[in-house]
């Protein structure tokens, strides 16, 4: 298994080199993407086998390249296998989409070679069983995706996005390096096995902090999310899908690996910062998304919210595990990983949909879209499925993971610590609030882009996207539904993962009647997505049947009624801005310091009245702007050092030497 997976990574790297030559022709581009799809599908299959067959995938491959102290160890344990399934399943379908979509790239040479390398990097992170190859994979993933963000480098905003991303990624990698250094201890055993053997008492809290910074910045935890809504939309849409739906999951994997696996048994208070940050992330992410009118940036911000939901599950699992409530920990952890899986499905789907819209209209701004449901019926259906799924509505998959998280929250009054007992219900309320706001956000996203009347010429001239993209989107929509109505299979296949992470697994689910899931006890709670789905279908069919039999069949098309004042101009429709205005007024006045001002002309003046809205990115203003100012000011000062004479330089070198010697001397 591990050999197969490792050779898959090798194949992807080879494809990356091949891409340099293949990108010159459209057919070559398509072939590279097709090969990526095939390799990823095979990798997903291998990982699934490794996950389901107990003990089959545990052997590891050693490659005699690496640090002087050790070799590179690659292998699949249940945790990495589960994430490898998630990553490669989404990557395979996204690559299938790219066969059609990627042909539109303006400069394919800037995309095609980096794309397989990006996937290879993510796989390397998952396969790594030692810190060295983990970090190599992590950096490969970061740099390849950075190059992809920069692929449309002529737009100044993309260059800015790439710069911010590069800085955040380097910072994140640095903290991870420190975390592994601490874990390896003074003897420097960098393989995960050696780290597990060394008692890591004492460094646990620091590792947690570093993991929150390093993996959290990659995943998009507030306040380290700032790069994410800039970088994800800047890349071509299939890459955005991978970055938002898949790379953030690799970051979650990094956090889980460090905190649940390597850092030793957790203390109960570890859950407090995780839960706090996660709750803030969930709420702020969705509020940011609601304020956004750019379809791809909205989706990117919404990834932040979903990362928050995932970390809520992880935080609960930490709290439960530390208090010895292993069954509850397994539930919370399984809910988190289930949401990782779900999010990888529907976020890929939605980014693909936005890519199809971008291709068809050249627009990302929802204020310039509208009415696409008629021109792009297949895209619309798939996008709608994704919207329902991500809004955590039954019978789709997003609801199942959210339901499981709620069930975990309802078990937490048994936690012994009163701080946790105070915090958890507030986290639950935040989760409920962000789920409801997510529904509002996706009513806006779907309603403004696909419903109503076309707001621009580009939107009315749109045409349906290509076949490859359609099939990929429909496939993901189907998977979203299947994971929603047959959640028992997903939960069962996560058994070995929860066993590894929290030392307990949920009872087998797939033998339950009606495919229902019973996380704790049948008298406590149960949910059968299949049953609910069938009931809804039956009820809708019965209603339609009865109405058809009883009611009048007459149907007349006429102009819209609109209370008797229909206006022919599509500009009179609700816009994305007006849709979000009430929410901005209620939530945004505090969070974004939103201000509205109406500039009315004087009576008799025929000038137009203007509504001005002022929004502040509070996190950016409070955290990033001062740092940027400080760096800029320091750079300004240090700039003088570039224009010194040779004497001055020699003096400087001498002074530095003396200073270092003094430091070394006093240290001893």
């Amino acid at each position, binding site marked *: 298994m591990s050999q197969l997976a490792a050779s898959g990574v090798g194949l992807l790297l080879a494809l990356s080199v091949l891409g340099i030559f293949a990108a010159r022709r459209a057919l070559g581009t398509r072939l590279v993407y097709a090969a990526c799809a095939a390799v990823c599908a095979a990798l997903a299959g291998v990982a699934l086998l490794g996950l389901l067959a107990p003990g089959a995938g545990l052997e590891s491959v050693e490659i005699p390249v690496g640090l002087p102290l050790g070799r590179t160890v690659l292998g699949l344990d249940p945790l990495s296998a589960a994430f490898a399934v998630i990553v490669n399943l989404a990557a395979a379908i996204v690559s299938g989409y790219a066969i059609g979509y990627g042909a539109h790239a303006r400069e394919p040479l800037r995309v095609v070679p980096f794309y397989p390398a990006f996937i290879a990097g993510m796989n390397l992170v998952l396969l790594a069983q030692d810190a060295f190859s983990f970090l190599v994979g992590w950096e490969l993933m970061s740099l390849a995706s950075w190059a992809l963000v920069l692929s449309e480098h002529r737009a100044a905003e993309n260059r800015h996005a790439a710069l911010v991303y590069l800085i955040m990624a380097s910072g994140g990698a640095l903290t991870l390096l420190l975390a592994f250094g601490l874990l390896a201890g003074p003897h420097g055993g960098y393989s995960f096995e050696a780290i597990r053997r060394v008692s890591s008492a004492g460094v646990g809290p620091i590792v947690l902090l570093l993991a929150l910074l390093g993996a959290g910045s990659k995943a998009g935890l507030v306040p380290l999310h700032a790069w994410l809504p800039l970088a994800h939309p800047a890349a071509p849409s299939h890459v955005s899908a991978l970055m938002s739906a898949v790379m953030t999951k690799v970051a979650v994997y990094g956090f889980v690996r460090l905190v649940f696996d390597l850092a030793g048994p957790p203390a109960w208070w570890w859950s407090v910062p995780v839960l706090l940050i996660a709750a803030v992330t969930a709420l702020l992410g969705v509020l940011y998304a609601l304020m956004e009118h750019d379809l791809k940036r909205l989706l990117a911000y919404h990834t932040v919210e979903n990362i928050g939901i995932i970390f809520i599950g992880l935080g609960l699992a930490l709290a439960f595990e530390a208090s010895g409530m292993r069954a509850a920990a397994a539930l919370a952890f399984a809910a988190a990983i289930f949401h990782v899986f779900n999010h990888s499905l529907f976020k890929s789907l939605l980014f693909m949909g936005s890519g199809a819209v971008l291709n068809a209209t050249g627009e990302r701004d929802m204020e310039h879209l509208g009415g696409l449901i008629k021109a792009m019926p297949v895209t619309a259906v798939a996008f709608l499925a994704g919207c329902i799924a991500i809004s955590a509505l*039954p019978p789709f998959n997003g609801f199942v993971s959210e339901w499981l998280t709620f069930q975990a929250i309802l078990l937490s009054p048994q936690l012994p610590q009163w701080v946790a007992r*105070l915090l958890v*219900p507030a986290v639950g309320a935040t989760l409920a609030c962000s789920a409801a706001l997510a529904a509002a956000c996706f*009513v806006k996203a779907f309603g403004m882009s696909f*419903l109503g009347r076309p707001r621009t010429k580009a939107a009315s001239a749109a045409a349906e996207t290509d076949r490859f993209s359609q099939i990929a989107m429909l496939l993901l929509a189907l998977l979203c539904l299947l994971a929603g109505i047959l959640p028992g299979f997903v939960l069962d296949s996560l058994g070995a993962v929860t066993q590894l992470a929290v030392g307990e697994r949920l009872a087998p689910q797939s033998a339950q009647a009606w495919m229902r899931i019973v996380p704790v006890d049948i*008298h406590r709670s149960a949910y059968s997505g299949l*049953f609910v789905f069938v009931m809804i279908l039956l009820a809708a069919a019965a209603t339609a049947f009865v109405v058809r039999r009883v009611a009048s069949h007459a149907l007349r098309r006429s102009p*819209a009624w609109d209370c008797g004042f229909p206006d022919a101009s599509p500009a009179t429709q609700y816009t994305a801005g007006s*849709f979000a205005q009430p929410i901005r007024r209620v939530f945004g006045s505090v969070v974004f310091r939103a201000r509205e001002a109406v500039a009315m002309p004087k009576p008799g003046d025929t000038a137009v009245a203007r509504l001005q809205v002022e929004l502040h990115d509070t996190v950016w203003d409070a955290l990033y702007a001062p740092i940027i100012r400080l760096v800029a000011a320091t750079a300004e000062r240090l700039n003088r050092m570039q224009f010194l004479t040779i004497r001055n330089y020699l003096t400087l070198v001498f002074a530095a030497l003396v200073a270092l010697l003094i430091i070394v001397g006093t240290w001893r």
Partner: protein
Amino acid sequence: MSYSDWLIQLAQTALVLGTAPLLSGVTRKIRARLLRRQGASVLQPYRDLLKLIRKEAVVAGNASWLFRAAPYLIFATTWVAAALVPTFASGLPLGAVADIIVIVALLGTARFLLALAGLDVGTSFGGLGSSREMLFASLAEPAMLMAVFTLSLFAGSTQLSSISAYMLGPGAGVNISLALALVALIIVSIGENARIPVDNPATHLELTMIHEAMILEYSGRHLAVLEAAAAVKLLLYLSLIACVFTPWGTAVAGAGALAYAAGLLAWAVKLALLAFLLVLFETAIAKMRVFRVPEFLGIALMLGLLGTILLFVSKVSR
């Protein structure tokens, strides 16, 4: 699960559908009487539905398939949610496949589709309704979930039958958390069913309207199905409150025909009482400004959260 249980479930499923228009007829009648009007017959909603269903449907020229499919899906999800709430008998077979969180979420699905349907034709009224509905839902839904959490923590279960059984048992008593959850649930019911002071079910062409604005473009059979869905939703909320907070008289699964008859009677009395209280409150209060409503619903959210936190801290829950 025996066949009789399924029969009872089927009977309840049909019952909520059959009596929902009657309930809205009764509320309108009570309201009219309180306003010193004669009011239409309590059977008027049935006649309205029949009239609408026989008329031709006028659909805006640019409406998509979503516009025409949405009413059926909205009705179906609302109906399924209503079938999950015990009315005259608890311990239903469906309780073992879907709990109260699912009910809240199913109503969320219906709301999502309705908001989309409001945006489909591309008129300003439809967008206005959708936008406001989603704003209110963003507070009402978590408020309801918090109330649900309080109840679930008491009963140690999220299944309505278990909660109802717990409320009947010796463990339940007058409790501050329960009272907070009740108030939260009532506020949410008012908001979600488009009643005064949040919305006015009796007006059109009013700038503050929400629910009516979303379905403004509907007519004929589509409108009939949506009106029926709204009636079922009101019945659902009142049944839910009755089932949880006044569980007396509800038959347990497997009880004899007499118990079922008694349960039916008890349910009818409870519903009539709740409808009376709802209308009494409605007639006594004025319609709120739109931006007052988030505060009103925010109160519900805070009460629900407070109830839950009290339970978490006092650890009386299971």
